[in-house]
């Protein structure tokens, strides 16, 4: 199955070593963006090349690999990345969160708590949390080194004064171990509380922007907020239509021409496991079914 023309997991060993150095540096300085010499990958920039390079650098032949996009294993780009590593590394794959040793994700953290020994690899489009406040990389790097985060607090404050709330619902900035402000990648803020104190290693790869950063296990991660406007994770106020879960992040589907809607877990593995365990939602023939 492995494509013999390429090295294990596609990248050559020198490149993987360079990436591993960046990962180790990232783990040593949690939340700090480490520049790395990102390679052109056979998939486009912006489609997970950072995550793919990080996965390629950490995968071993014994790993079991899972890829999710929007929480789902079956979205097209997740399928494409999974088959890339099946082809170039020949690793075992799985859709079960619990069984995976390396999970590459775009935009979600799995619902099921991760454990020690697992690695969660995030695909990151814009690693710089200050980018939309200051477009210049030379400036934002200075701001990080001086711990000059006033601009970010002003932005959040302006949101509150204008809208009554912080108007950021995903890619919600966090502070890591009281030092670096970090972009958690575009996960919904619902997922932010899972970032902190996580048992698994979290690695973030931004290919086009040539940055890697990391959270070692059990790192303190705080979502930015104010005492009188505490951070609140949010989700659609419904149970899942398929598995009746009330604690999972939901996607909204339009199911008929009249604009009828249903809500369903974005984490497909979580939802399927619950259904298999006998939890049935109202759109799945369960209680309260129409």
């Amino acid at each position, binding site marked *: 199955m492995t494509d013999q023309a390429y090295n294990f997991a596609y990248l050559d060993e020198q490149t993987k070593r360079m990436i591993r150095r960046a990962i180790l540096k990232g783990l040593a300085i949690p939340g700090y963006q480490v520049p790395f010499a990102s390679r052109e990958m056979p998939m486009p920039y912006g489609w997970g090349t950072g995550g793919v390079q990080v996965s390629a650098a950490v995968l071993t032949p014994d790993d079991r690999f899972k890829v999710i996009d929007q929480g789902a294993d079956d979205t097209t780009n997740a399928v494409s990345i999974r088959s890339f590593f099946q082809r170039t590394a020949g690793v075992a794959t799985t859709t079960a969160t619990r069984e995976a040793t390396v999970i590459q994700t775009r935009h979600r953290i799995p619902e099921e708590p991760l454990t020690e020994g697992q690695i969660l690899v995030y695909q990151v489009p814009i690693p710089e949390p200050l980018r939309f406040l200051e477009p210049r990389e030379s400036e934002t790097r200075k701001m990080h080194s001086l711990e000059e985060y006033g601009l970010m607090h002003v932005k959040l404050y302006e949101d509150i004064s204008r809208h009554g709330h912080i108007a950021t619902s995903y890619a919600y900035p966090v502070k890591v171990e009281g030092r670096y402000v970090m972009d958690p990648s575009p996960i*919904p803020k619902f997922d932010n509380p899972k970032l902190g104190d996580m048992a698994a290693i979290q690695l973030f790869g931004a290919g086009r922007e040539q940055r890697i950063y990391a959270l070692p296990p059990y790192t303190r991660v705080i979502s930015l907020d104010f005492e009188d406007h505490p951070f609140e994770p949010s989700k659609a106020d419904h149970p899942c239509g398929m598995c009746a879960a009330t604690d999972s992040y939901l996607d909204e589907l339009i199911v008929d021409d009249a604009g009828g809607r249903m809500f369903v877990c974005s984490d497909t593995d979580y939802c399927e496991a619950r259904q298999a365990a006998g939890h049935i939602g109202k759109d799945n023939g369960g209680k309260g079914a129409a």
Partner: protein
Amino acid sequence: MYVAVKGGERAIENAHAWLAEERRGDTAIAELGTAQIREQLSLAVNRVMAEGSLYDPDLAALAIKQARGDLIEAIFLIRAYRTTLPRFGASLPVETGAMACDRRISATFKDLPGGQILGPTFDYTHRLLDFKLAADGEVPEAPSREAATGPVPHVTGFLNREGLIEEAPLDNTPPPDLTREPLEMPANRALRLQALTRADEGFTLGLAYSTQRGYGRNHAFVGELRIGSVPVEMEIPELGFAIEIGEVTLTECETVNQFTGSKTEPPQFTRGYGLVFGQTERKAISMALVDRALRWEELGEDNVGAPAQDAEFVLYHADNIQATGFLEHIKLPHYVDFQSELELVRKLRREATAEQMREAAE
């Protein structure tokens, strides 16, 4: 009832099969050979080699065929291939003064040693569709003569003798490597030139044009434009001397720009430089203009806030493979983020409406 969508894998396979069929087009029409592309669409091949940063006309032709003529897609194929190639070492700097020129023109001197050679140019063609080509593309052989022997010295060398143009001292510092180190600011000129030579032609052209129209104006004369082949030499440590490993065709453009002097420099002409793989004239001239605009700081000029003066803006946005990837990624699903935005907008609207109703009631 909602059924979770499975079968992404099969959908992708089928899409690829359809793509292959569309690429081939009508099978009643003869298939295009890569040798035909290499020979008859050579300017497309040159662009793919230049922006793909890989000098291999056969691979570029294959990439163009595979990409159905989408040159950015072809450049992407070449880049992705290039990055997997092992590196044996670096060549010696090529000597463009020793170029076997197919074309060599100067806009600053009517005549000069080595002469003006028009070469195979569109410049003075009338842009009238040639309907004969639709029926029969065969052409009579062009007149030829023996190439003139003798040196073709760089025009800027003549100006330099009078001290009229800024010095460009020889610098043997190894240049940084954009493809092996992350691009970090500030970027020195060698790194900027490296980024510009593989930059998107359209982006570079637009920026160069903007300097001509006043956004960081620096009137440029084409001191010299030359196209031709140069030998590539490499030192082999085991041998202890350099051997020729091949030949590449290059386009080199040196501009001579006005400069009225600054606090540190007397009035003199300054330089812009463009060097690109293949016959890629538009790109080389554009590159030289943008190079010159980016040099404002080292020449002590004012930053007038023009886009072409802003190295960070130019270098971070000039790569079409990065740009197209990120631009097109917005086609990927964003359900999760969109959902969180939906919740937020609904909440803000609910509160705004309640506020209005309260005000109306009062």
